[in-house]
């Protein structure tokens, strides 16, 4: 077998499990491992570690295997209620998780030798994890004597081969085979003892069956790893019969009940039933294809409805109506397939925040709200990096050290909230801290120095703050920490979010905190748009950037410094003509409409010939080509079957 073939699969899955491991550990920092919530976390942790161990064993990744095995052993004790995790152990498990992550990445890299984490580290961690185990191991009882109670049937003595894996389970297979022959009246040692480490593979059972010795031996031996089966007829004497006169079924039932109870005691009845929230992985291209097809169906639907209306056939109209409804539902369903809850990305962040806080000596209480809010998968992945940046930034620059906070009359632990909320057709993701707020004086000084504002300005508003700090290379950090302050952050966040058709908003209150809000469209595939006509062509303007639209009257257009502007509610805004942009000759604006565009603090009016209305459009993205087309980022087909280009507002402003 060539392990290289499996490397990629191993890495992908192991990384997923590492996220689960870290999450569960963070949860266990706050709740005891033996409480309800703690038990769930221990179970999750156990399953993840266990799966990593299984995969690493096959791959021959020894370091990963050794670490995960040691972690699993400790966790098994915790699950069985033999130990409770204290802070020290959780921290040990954190170290082990880190080493595990390194080991996973190193093992699966092309040159395992060069990148492998120090074998000493792994060995010492394994020792530390095992150190905990030795105490418990002493409590284990020795294997009990083989004393089969007398009764009906024959005594069958079985020896498994030495070194048989999971001898207790193997013994149960033998017992199961015996049951297929007749009634198993008794088994010694009992199941609990067979499951103990002391079980050496020697056991006996009493079998009441209507078959001969040879049959018993061959059937039981076929269970695998059986070295010897001996059948002894020790038929009961008179007087003992009454004791064994209980119905057989009851004996079996009692035995099963015991097993169930012991099983639950050892593993936790909820542990296995707790469903792991998992999703089927689907290539996004497949979903896109389905989306395209559903979009085309929507168009056909429109044409069909028009035709059907002309015939005046109620049966046809009914059928078309029904089909229309189904097509809409289909489209919604396909669209839903692209949506994922934000926790799929948010759940990586507690560890990010924890580590940032630790390395800076800060105390941070991290709160996540709105985990179940759904967002287009592609979008969600795109905002993951910007969010990491904003979170680190908040821990580094926003939240003060515990001493400073106490001196300012705040609680020593800062509060950092990451929330997602649905607001009409947008999802707002907010990163909010209760720290010191943006240092306005410093930003103002920088802005003056850079000539971004007039020298006499005394205060910057929030949107100006954002504009200044988002200028590439801008940083007010006194020191460049490992985390942030290199000035390569906010501008990258802004440009990424804007590229996705979103907006960033900053609110800062001196001494009370900062909040960044990212307003994102729910999906990139279907967006609400305003349809407009210029000449013979239709264009779509995404509603995300439209604040209002109005009929243009000649009086409200003026010329300032050679540029056309529109005055609305005493605000002077630049005017752009879509006719100019697409290369059509200008015409009298009197009967035109103007669409007010807004992107962050930039606003402008876009003049179009005619407004066609609002529609949910299916976006077919295309890469911008040279020249005028660069302000279009896609095309759509409207319900009448004609095509419309989609304007990218950010390129116009």
């Amino acid at each position, binding site marked *: 077998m060539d392990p290289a073939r499996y490397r990629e699969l191993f890495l992908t899955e192991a990384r997923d499990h590492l996220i689960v491991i870290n999450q569960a550990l963070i949860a266990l920092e706050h709740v005891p491992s033996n409480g309800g919530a703690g038990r769930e976390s221990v179970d999750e942790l156990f399953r993840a570690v266990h799966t990593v161990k299984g995969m690493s064993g096959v791959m021959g990744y020894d370091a990963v295997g050794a670490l995960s095995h040691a972690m699993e052993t400790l966790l098994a004790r915790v699950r069985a209620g033999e130990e409770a995790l204290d802070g020290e152990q959780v921290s040990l498990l954190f170290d082990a998780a880190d080493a595990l992550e390194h080991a996973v990445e190193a093992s699966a890299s092309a040159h395992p030798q060069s990148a492998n984490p120090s074998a000493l580290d792994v060995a010492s961690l394994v020792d530390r994890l095992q150190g905990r185990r030795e105490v418990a191991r002493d409590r284990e009882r020795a294997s009990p004597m083989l004393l089969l109670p007398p009764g009906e049937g024959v005594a069958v003595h079985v020896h498994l081969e030495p070194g048989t894996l999971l001898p207790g389970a193997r013994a149960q297979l033998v017992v199961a085979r015996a049951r297929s022959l007749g009634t198993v009246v008794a088994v010694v040692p009992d199941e609990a003892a067979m499951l103990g480490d002391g079980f050496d593979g020697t056991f006996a059972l009493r079998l009441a069956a209507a078959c001969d010795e040879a049959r018993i031996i061959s059937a039981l031996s076929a269970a695998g790893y059986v070295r010897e089966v001996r059948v002894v007829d020790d038929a009961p004497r008179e007087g003992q019969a009454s004791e064994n006169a209980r119905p057989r079924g009851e004996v079996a039932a009692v035995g099963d009940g015991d097993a169930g109870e012991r099983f639950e005691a050892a593993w936790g009845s909820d542990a296995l039933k707790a*469903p792991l929230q998992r999703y089927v992985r689907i290539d996004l291209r497949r979903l896109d294809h389905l989306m395209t097809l559903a979009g085309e169906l929507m168009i056909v639907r429109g044409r069909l409805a028009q035709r059907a209306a002309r015939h005046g056939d109620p049966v046809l109209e009914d059928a078309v109506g029904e089909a229309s409804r189904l097509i809409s539902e289909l489209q919604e369903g396909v669209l839903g397939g692209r949506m994922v809850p934000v926790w799929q990305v948010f759940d990586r962040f507690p560890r990010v925040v924890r580590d940032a806080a630790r390395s800076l000596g800060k105390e941070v209480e991290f709160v996540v709200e709105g985990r179940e809010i759904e967002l287009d998968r592609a979008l969600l992945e795109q905002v993951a990096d910007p969010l990491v940046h904003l979170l680190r930034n908040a821990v580094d620059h926003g939240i003060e050290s515990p001493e400073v906070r106490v001196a300012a009359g705040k609680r020593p632990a800062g509060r950092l909230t990451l929330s997602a909320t649905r607001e009409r057709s947008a999802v707002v993701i907010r990163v909010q801290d209760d720290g010191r707020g943006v240092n306005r004086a410093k930003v103002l000084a920088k802005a003056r120095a850079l000539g971004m504002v007039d020298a006499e300005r005394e205060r910057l508003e929030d949107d100006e703050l954002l504009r200044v700090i988002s200028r590439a290379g801008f940083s007010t950090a006194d020191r460049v920490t490992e985390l942030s302050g290199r000035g390569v952050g906010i501008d990258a966040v802004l440009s990424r979010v804007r590229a996705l058709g979103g907006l960033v908003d900053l609110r800062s209150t001196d001494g009370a905190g900062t909040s960044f809000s990212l307003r994102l469209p729910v999906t990139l595939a279907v967006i609400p748009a305003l349809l407009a006509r210029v000449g013979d062509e239709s264009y779509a303007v995404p509603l995300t950037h439209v604040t209002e639209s109005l009929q243009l009257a000649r009086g409200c257009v003026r010329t300032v410094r050679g540029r056309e502007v529109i005055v609305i509610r005493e605000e002077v805004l630049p005017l752009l003509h879509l006719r100019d942009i697409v290369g059509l000759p200008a015409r009298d604006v009197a009967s035109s409409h103007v669409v007010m565009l807004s992107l962050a603090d930039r606003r402008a009016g876009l003049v179009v010939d005619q407004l066609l209305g609002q529609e949910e459009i299916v976006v077919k993205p295309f890469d911008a080509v040279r020249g005028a087309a660069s302000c279009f980022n896609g095309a759509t087909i409207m319900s009448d079957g004609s095509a419309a280009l989609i304007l990218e507002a950010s390129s116009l402003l």
Partner: protein
Amino acid sequence: MSHTVLICDDAIFMRTMLGDILQQAGFDVVGEAETGAQAVDKYRTLRPDLVTMDIVMPDMGGIDAVREITRSDPAAKVLMCSAMGQQALVVEAIQAGAKDFVVKPFQPSRVLEAVQRVLG
């Protein structure tokens, strides 16, 4: 005609590996399932000669799946895939109707021996 197999494991990795081992030995892997519930469904439609079943799976666990499958087909041949730490679970699986088990990490020879025992 070669024996048909349904592989149930939530890890693609494990499914791929088991599939390779079995295919190389001439088995016909007719289906894969990644949850217990899927395994039960696929068993009903595919009626394979053999099912390999991971113990810990999301949704419906391997043990419940074995119970369901054996209920619908008492002659079903289910081989549990387990790890060293799961002895108690394996025992429960056997009581639920599993016919044998293999222990991870898999050695191809052991997997095939177990398969032979189950089919034999």
